[in-house]
């Protein structure tokens, strides 16, 4: 989707000088130890992080109360841009947004014709999903049965509904068909709330039903995955934030204050595919699980040039400048004292990856970053540097009128890149956007995730054999989810987990400074595992300036 898309040929104007990136270094711990202080672990950024530190499941615990009491979680986190002045303003934003949404939905269908689906981030099933499915009337009994049976067997259902029981979103099956079911869901929620109680989850053989309550919405997941209720709730929260990012919390609560049983789908129609995409992304991309961002492997020198260039291509209204490549972070420059929350970044990732419409020229769209400020919109300038590369630039501005200034930043940035020849290096890097685990040189090692807590970044190699099929890859992530949920169990957290299973051995190691998840051959011994850890940590330390952003810059 894209709001107020204004297509312009970005004109070249060679001008502006380059300030050298300041590459001062702090002495760093050589070998990893559990006692490694945060900020000293491999991949730790030198001057703080670019992110708000995401602790696991904070949202389930803290924000709930505040959400209930209607105040935004990140209240007072830096100087948030002023709320749009009056109500008219908002409702205007709104109508525009909605019209655009439908508009996009249409031209999406054109793009999404078979052939353009090599776009990796496009979920096969979701191509050109219509805003609402045709209702199943007229289908014969048998079909009905098969259909419902097939519907039941889906791995993960997600439902969003209003407190009045009005369907907002359903991953599978038309909301109409499910309105009665959703009615029951709301009934259950309110029944327990009547007793000053709250429903959390229902457990049965082979599946779970998880409820998350975020006034004015109710989110429900029905999952046959091995994920814990906590994790599922976490995913529902992502869905919730996804919706906020389209509407802002303020508008959402306002709407329902105005009209108890408002049908939110009118606003969100066309955005389902973003949500669908988010769900698919979460099932495959560990970023969400890690609550961190992954960097494009890049020579430090090149990255420094890129960051510096971003830094210099600044404008008054800019808060964040983000360069992405396929959901991997290339560089991020932020306003001093302004931190981006990983969740917000993920939402941006998702926004980009759920549509290839941004490949044409520049987009200028209002986006709410709910963890940053759920009350208002930012305006994001989205553009691919060159149509044929995956390099996507996001310039997050506080001023919706500032398009031209921001667009000019893009031009300046590209200029600088060229000047310093970095764009070639970048192209080069993009040819191998992932590294093979073989480089680590541990025979038994199959895959790993490593997260530096202070920098909010993580790294992991390409998923290779034997995890070749999609199922296997999702299974692998499932295993990581399992380790993660045990390690971060709300009441019984664990420091180390060693798991020997039928298909692989896993090891999780969580310290104050970093988290490491290793997957290796089921025939590997414990001794070899322990050695592997040390070898791997040394390797990461060696490679850290390629795998991480060690010198994040601010304007």
């Amino acid at each position, binding site marked *: 989707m894209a709001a107020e898309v204004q297509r312009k040929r970005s004109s070249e104007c060679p001008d502006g000088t380059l300030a050298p990136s300041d590459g001062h270094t702090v002495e760093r711990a050589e070998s990893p130890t559990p006692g490694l202080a945060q900020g000293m672990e491999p991949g730790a950024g030198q001057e703080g992080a670019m992110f708000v530190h995401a602790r696991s499941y904070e949202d389930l615990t803290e924000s709930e109360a505040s959400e209930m009491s209607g105040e935004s979680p990140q209240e007072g986190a830096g100087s948030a841009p002023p709320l749009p002045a009056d109500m008219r303003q908002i409702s205007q934003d709104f109508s525009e947004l909605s019209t655009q949404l439908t508009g996009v939905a249409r031209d999406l269908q054109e793009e999404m014709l078979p052939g353009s689906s090599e776009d990796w981030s496009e979920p096969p099933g979701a191509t050109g999903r219509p805003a609402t499915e045709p209702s199943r009337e007229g289908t014969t009994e048998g079909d009905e049965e098969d259909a419902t049976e097939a519907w*039941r067997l889906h791995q993960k259902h997600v439902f969003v509904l209003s407190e009045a029981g009005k369907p907002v979103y359903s991953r599978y099956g038309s909301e109409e068909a499910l309105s009665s*079911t959703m009615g029951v869901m709301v009934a259950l929620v309110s029944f327990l709330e009547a007793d000053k109680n709250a429903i959390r*989850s*229902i457990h049965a053989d082979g599946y779970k039903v998880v409820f998350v309550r975020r006034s004015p919405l109710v989110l429900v997941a029905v999952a046959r995955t091995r994920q814990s209720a906590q994790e599922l709730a976490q995913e529902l929260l992502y869905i919730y934030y996804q919706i906020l990012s389209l509407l802002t919390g303020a508008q959402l609560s306002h709407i329902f204050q105005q009209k108890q049983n408002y049908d939110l789908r009118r606003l969100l129609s066309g955005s389902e595919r973003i949500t669908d995409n988010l769900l698919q992304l979460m099932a495959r991309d560990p970023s969400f699980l890690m609550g961190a961002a992954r960097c494009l492997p890049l020579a430090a020198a090149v990255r420094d040039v890129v960051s510096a260039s971003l830094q210099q291509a600044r404008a008054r209204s800019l808060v964040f400048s983000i360069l992405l490549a396929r959901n991997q972070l290339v560089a991020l420059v932020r306003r001093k004292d302004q931190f981006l929350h990983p969740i917000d970044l993920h939402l941006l990732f998702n926004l980009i990856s759920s549509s290839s419409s941004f490949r044409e020229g520049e987009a200028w769209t209002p986006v709410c970053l709910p963890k940053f400020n759920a009350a208002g919109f930012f305006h994001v300038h989205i553009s691919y540097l060159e149509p044929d590369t995956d390099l996507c630039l996001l310039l997050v501005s506080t001023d919706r009128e500032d398009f031209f200034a921001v667009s000019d930043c893009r031009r300046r940035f590209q200029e600088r890149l060229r000047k310093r020849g970095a764009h070639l290096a970048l192209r080069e890097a993009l040819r191998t956007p992932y590294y093979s685990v073989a480089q680590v040189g541990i025979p038994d090692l199959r895959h790993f995730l490593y997260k530096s807590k202070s920098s909010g970044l993580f790294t992991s190699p390409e998923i290779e054999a034997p995890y070749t099929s999609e199922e296997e890859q999702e299974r692998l992530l499932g295993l990581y989810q399992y380790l993660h949920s045990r390690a971060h169990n*709300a*009441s019984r957290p*664990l420091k180390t987990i060693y798991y020997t*299973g039928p298909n692989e051995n896993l090891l999780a190691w969580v310290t104050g400074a970093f988290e490491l998840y290793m997957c290796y051959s089921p025939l590997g011994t414990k001794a070899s595992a322990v050695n592997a850890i040390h070898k791997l940590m040394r390797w990461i330390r060696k490679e850290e300036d390629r795998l991480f952003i060690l010198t994040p810059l601010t304007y």
Partner: protein
Amino acid sequence: MGLSTRLQGNRVHASVQEENKILFYHPNEVEKNEKIRNVGLCEAIVQFTRTFSPSKPAKSLHTQKNRQFFNEPEENFWMVMVVRNPIIEKQSKDGKPIVEYQEEELLDKVYSSVLQQCYSMYKLFNGTFLRAMEDGGVKLLKERLEKFFHRYLQTLHLQSCDLLDIFGGISFFPLDKMTYLKIQSFINRVEESLSIVKYTAFLYNDQLIWSGLEQDDMRILYKYLTTSLFPRHIEPELAGRDSPVRAEIPGNLQHYGRGLEPFIPGYTALISAMSAAVCFMIDAATQPTLDFCRRLDSIVGPQLTVLASDICEQFHINKRTSGSEKDPQFKFIYFNHMNLAEKSTIHMRKTPSVSLTSVHPDLMKILGDINSDFTRVDEDEEIIVKAMSDYWVVGKKSDQRELYVILNQKNANLIEVNEEVKKLCATQFNNIFFLD
């Protein structure tokens, strides 16, 4: 932690007044509408989940304040148990005390097992619900439920439930071949001379040596014998679950007939000499006479006394040879699904009041977590974790056997931990095929 058990029946009778649907409700004081509300919720939950899986409806419901467990032991008969989450009082900034519910403290598997246990135990003594309905309709069923659960619920101690309640295992008494054979021939002889004895079970120190019943029946009977039936007046607090409490008291020959306990399909007569106890299941058809009891006593008594002292002797010999099995380095729980054999060095003796475990509750819960992880795949798995308290907890699953070890060497590393477990297996389980 409070308990409230509901037994709710039978949509077939829906036409009957709402409250009639509730066959048993504890605590009974609860106001009628409240009862109906709660029961209604359970029905709603179950119905709701049927939309996603008609055949596998909800097993449990998690809410902020409590957890509810559902069990449909017989078609259209539902048992529900509600267990409150533990709470901690906190001081809010403005000094007001606020209660916070600890929602992750209860382990589903433990309490759903307890609930199933409730039914099995009821059935052991009363037969199925349906049978009661046929015999005397709802009225009779309600009576039976009232009569049984009124007493049984006293014996439940939910706060001390743990892994062992999931297993519902049987602790076997280690014994040498010869003594075992003697017991065999003793039992055979008694059964030969008293034809109305259908089955016999032989226990020593609340540990099973021989069961003529089938495994599943024995499992419940064993639970019953060891938790409800045996006189518990002599009960040193700190004696391992598997230690010969009564045998320690020398020459205390309390040979005595435990009268006759009602039992499906017949009656049980229990005779115990010293720490040995023989449990005779008697054909339901024949009412045992007092004369029969005398005969039983005269036949069994003398032989049993001799056997008991044999066993006791053997036991102490083994103890001496095996040396001190109480190793401070580790404590463990072992369970074999194939024969329900269970062994724990973690548990102190289960007293009627509470089962004392020698480890921190959190560690016990971690064991529970590992156990539930195991049940997700039925292949062999091993899980080793290091808790925040720096204790190491090891779970091994190998061909239907489960072993859980807690090591208190806080600064050991993975390899050392593995060595310890290997050592344990070598000493405790060298005679079984147990992969490491």
